[in-house]
């Protein structure tokens, strides 16, 4: 794979709330190359969405605050970009499919008007061109008889169709980089399979890079090239998909993989991770996973583990590896 398109470098994001300070993302670094699909997985609340939104500069400040780090798109620090550059980035290069389609699509405008509007602002099309392109896009994402759906409102679509409309909207700017935040989580498996197929054909067709957020390891196993695992605001493991699945190095990743019920055989009892994810307002000192970790040592309660390269291109943040 070629040069990185997106680089996140030691990113820390805090929310300064009345109840106290919440560190949602803590020292996260990752990079995504051209044409690469990167899967970001982790427990809910671990900071996946905040990481993704930071790439679009969509963190509300205040209460949010980019406490440290850089996010670079094609080498350019996006937090140093002017408003005009940022509009260009969002309108023409990076697009995002949000976790809840209803919150991202406008209920009072028709689907045709919303996509058409984006095309006219971002791509400088006139009304007729925009309408023609909208029909093409809806067709592309598999909306049946797209011409007759232009005047429909979002609430008239099923969940799977809403996700497709979101995708059509995201693709309207011919993005080179797509961020998809749990685009299939609320969907049934057959619809999920359709959306995944659609996304992978888009990637091939447009040579897009993709940041794919999900908590479904099955989806990552089949849709992604690389994987990053987050736990309580930290990235704890990073590597190629094949490496991480075959040879997981962080106890949380191992625990996660062991928790999944299998489809081929029936086991009487599963092997869960004990305990619960920590309160993000009051995380434990040291490794955030230590209260749930079977292998935790004394040092784990004191020091946050450093990032170690456990195999070429495969990283983990765990004291088990700093010991060696």
């Amino acid at each position, binding site marked *: 794979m070629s040069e990185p398109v997106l680089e996140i470098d030691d990113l820390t994001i805090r929310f300064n709330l009345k109840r106290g300070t919440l560190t949602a993302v803590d020292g996260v670094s990752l990079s995504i190359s051209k044409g690469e699909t990167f899967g970001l997985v982790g427990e809910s609340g671990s900071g996946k969405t905040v990481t993704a939104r930071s790439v679009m500069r969509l963190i509300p400040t205040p209460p949010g605050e980019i406490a440290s780090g850089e996010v670079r798109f094609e080498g350019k620090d996006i937090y140093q970009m002017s408003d005009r550059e940022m509009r260009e980035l969002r309108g023409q290069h990076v697009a995002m499919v949000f976790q809840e389609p209803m919150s991202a699509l406008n209920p009072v405008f028709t689907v045709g008007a919303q996509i058409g509007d984006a095309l006219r602002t971002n791509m400088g099309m006139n009304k007729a061109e925009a309408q023609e392109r909208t029909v093409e896009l809806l067709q592309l994402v598999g909306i049946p008889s797209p011409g007759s759906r232009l005047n429909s409102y979002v609430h008239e679509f099923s969940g799977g169709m809403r996700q497709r409309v979101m995708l059509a909207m995201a693709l309207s700017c011919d993005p080179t980089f797509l961020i998809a935040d749990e685009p299939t989580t609320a969907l049934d498996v057959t619809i999920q399979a359709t959306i995944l197929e659609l996304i992978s054909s888009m990637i091939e067709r447009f040579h897009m890079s993709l940041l794919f957020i999900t908590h479904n*390891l099955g989806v990552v196993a089949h849709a992604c090239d690389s994987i990053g695992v987050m736990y309580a605001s930290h990235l704890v493991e990073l590597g190629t998909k094949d490496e991480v*699945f075959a040879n997981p190095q962080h106890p949380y990743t191992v625990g996660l993989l062991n928790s999944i019920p299998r489809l081929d055989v029936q086991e009487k009892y*599963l092997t869960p991770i004990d305990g619960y994810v920590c309160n993000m307002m009051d995380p434990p000192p040291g490794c955030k996973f230590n209260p749930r970790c079977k292998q935790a040592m004394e040092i784990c309660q004191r020091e946050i583990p450093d990032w170690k390269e456990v195999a070429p291109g495969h990283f983990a943040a765990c004291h088990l590896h700093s010991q060696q």
Partner: protein
Amino acid sequence: MSDAAMSQAETAPTAAEENLLDVRNLTKYFDLHGDLVSRLAGKHQLLKAVDDISFYIRKGETLGLVGESGCGKSTTGRLITRLIEPTSGEIDLHGEDLLSFSAQRMRETRKDIQLVFQDPYASLNPRKTIMHILSRPLDVHGLATNWHDKRERVLELLNLVGMGSEHIDRYPHEFSGGQRQRLAIARALSVNPELVIGDEPVSALDVSIQAQILNLFRELQEKFGLTYLFIAHDLSVIRHISDRVAVMYVGKIVEEGPVDVIFSEPLHPYTNALLAAVPEADPKKPPPRLTLSGEVATPIDPPPGCRLAGRCPLAKPVCAEVDPDLRGIDGDHRVACHVV
């Protein structure tokens, strides 16, 4: 009686006394009056949420009910608890006709059938303490008289679901999703039910927590001989927890059988499609595939014939005309399809 039906009658012990629950021809139609114009025109739209389904659950076993959103799983669960009344059909509990029970008898029977819902946030009253929430069913069913007994019982319940006694005076918002689901299970168990209906009880949980709760369900079943109707849309969860599985599609049961048969020798094209679409968490396994075209059929005034006909790769002309019966294959295995 056809040969197939005969052999089914011989091998499947559907005799009422062996089954905790026997459901026959259960049907629930919702009348969607439609807009004013269609009402004036005398048109009624019927949403066939559950359409003539039959199944049984033996005492102490788990029947998994699986299917895609809107296929009628929750409606089936609600019908069995009589939270809603069926359009037609029979529900026998221990061979007794539940639908003929008087209001008084039904109130008593309610404690035998308990529901655990998907959303642990919505199902616990935020303004009440855990003590209050877990002892309320004891009051309702007159199962504990004095405060001391109730407190003892609540502590026992907390212990049973793996939660410390220090939680007894706390409020639901102080707990995580997984803990709240434990509390919901404790509440369901407080009245010693026979049948627990779990309506997607692990769907909202992270995988690591989901595994804890699935283990808890299993443990409690072993301890108390509980019978489960376990509703889920996640096939690996169904695979894990069920003894037998019923697959629903748009208001109908399309296939039913022992869990190993359904997962290793599925017959119905819909069951096959569901299984093929699951991405397994192992890159070496084949990638998910889509074997059906089009969208899920509508339950509103569905056309005649098999509900899968419009999207089925095996469909023949007869499929669009005649609704296939659920027929016995061998043993407990039943399938509703003209072709397989």
